[in-house]
């Protein structure tokens, strides 16, 4: 009989699961198997829930673990399958126009690591330090990646002038 996560963990799961899956999907695409990665991260979180539940933002820990797991999934899959990322993204012409300025289209045109960094920073609201942990790189690299991604987004979103230079600090 499978153990039953306690009530607080279930609440935490229900509150965070979809957001984490979507962040992975946005940042890494389908090939990272977002749900698989998120479920693995939540399972590990349950095993140390006593300590994690006392953190101010336990979701950050799950995010970091999920991103690492998702990147492993992606490496595993792309070794054998060369399918393009975001394969399930609907490609309806009518949406393209509507989505052009939403950012999703712009995100597609970023480099994979830039896309992931931007999603984790602005969508998942992780700190630069946590993004560095998740992406297994230095904080300076994260800042530089976010900075170059912002530059790229400015050209892709010319109407937008509100991108804050201080966001990557």
């Amino acid at each position: 009989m499978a153990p039953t996560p306690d009530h607080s963990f279930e609440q935490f799961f229900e509150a965070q699961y979809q957001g984490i899956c979507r962040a992975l999907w946005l940042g890494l695409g389908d090939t990272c198997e977002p749900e698989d990665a998120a479920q693995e991260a939540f399972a590990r979180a349950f095993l140390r829930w006593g300590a994690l539940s006392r953190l101010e933002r336990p979701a950050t820990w799950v995010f970091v673990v999920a991103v690492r797991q998702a990147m492993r999934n992606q490496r595993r899959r792309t070794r054998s399958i060369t399918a393009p990322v975001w394969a399930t993204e609907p490609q309806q012409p009518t949406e393209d126009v509507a989505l052009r300025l939403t950012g999703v289209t712009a995100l597609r045109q970023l480099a994979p690591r830039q896309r992931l960094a931007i999603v984790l920073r602005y969508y998942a609201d992780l700190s630069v330090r946590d993004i560095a942990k998740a992406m297994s790189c230095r904080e300076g690299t994260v800042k530089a990646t976010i900075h170059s991604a912002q530059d790229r987004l400015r050209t892709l979103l010319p109407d937008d002038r509100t991108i804050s230079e201080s966001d990557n600090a």
Partner: protein
Amino acid sequence: MPDHVIARLRDRASLSYRPDVSNGLTNVRARIARHKRARLSVSLVLVVGLVAALVTVAIVVPGQNAANAARYLRISPTTRIVELSGPSNGLSDVYFADSTHGLGLDQQCRLSSVADTACALAIARTNDGGRTWKRVGATLHVTYPDSRASYPFIDFVTDGRDGWIYGSMTFVTHDGGRTFEPDGPGGLVMDLSIMGNETWALSRPCTPGTVGCSSTLFSAPTAGGAWMVEHGAPKLEYPYLQLLRTSPKDAFLAAQSTDGTLYSTVDGGLSWASHPLPPLCDQLQHLTALNVHSVWALCSAATPNDSQSKELYHSVDDGSTWALVSTTSPTLVPDVGTLPISGIVTLLNAVAPDRLLIGFDQGPPIASTDGGRTWAPQGLPTSGRVGQLTFTDAQHGWAILLANDALYRTSDGGAHWSMAASG
């Protein structure tokens, strides 16, 4: 990144991608169960591994000590020991027929604490009292099954033709060491003694530490022939035994254990009598004798700091009764000599009726010329242990010093020594 863009990202993601929360929780529960099983398996493997390691240590370490201890208890007219850390390469055992003619075992062993021990063995001959040695015949390549093997010793008859290399594996030669062939009664030959036409071998079919395994005494014609069991000999289970032959008919057999019994035969092994060892003998360490009517027994008990309480007893009636000759606690017993408490005895050798030698694991050997009552350091270099000590008569003797693998020679009964050859 502007908030409206982020909001649109969220909207877009929620429209295009809807993770299944209920199935997700079910899957998470399954993963949790899997993780717990994996943790349990790892814990079990670690516990099993730890238990196996502890059992291995408990079995192997005492066994290694036992194998080492066995080498302390090799008593014969030629007293021998082996360095505890392993054999010294080079000339490791010598046999002298007289003051000039001798044979030596030249060994080169590749030691390992975990793997098999491979040795290249060859017989060397000297015709000048040990000053120069010349190899005889081909090299014998032997692989001992593990690092706890008993390292080889030799024994030869006085004409130098018939002889054995014995130990964990035993080989015989009948041409003075030019050729060898596998021989022996099987098992670990702990001692082998050539007296006249009959050679005896004390064999143990199992390694030291095996419970319920007893020794067997075999005999074979020295010139060659089958090994036969000496059924009259006592079968002693204690692994550390000594066979001491003083003539073709007379011999002693004893165990190091504290069962307090010495066995003797005066009819070539047909019958054996048992005698009580001295009642105060805590543990019999060494026996030596020139003949059956004059036997010395050195008993000891371990004390801390590399010291050892010692008692030397003498018997003139085949071991039936014993007299304390010297001890490390002379004040407790009147009219006995004094033995040093420091040092672990590694050899005891009777050279002449009243002349005895004792070697230690460290420091110079000591000698007595009054039957063991008084002792004085003898003239061998003080550094390192004497690995082997053998005398052909009361005057001529040889000693192998393990410190420098050198062979020393004396022609005045051990009062003065000079280096005969160096390794």
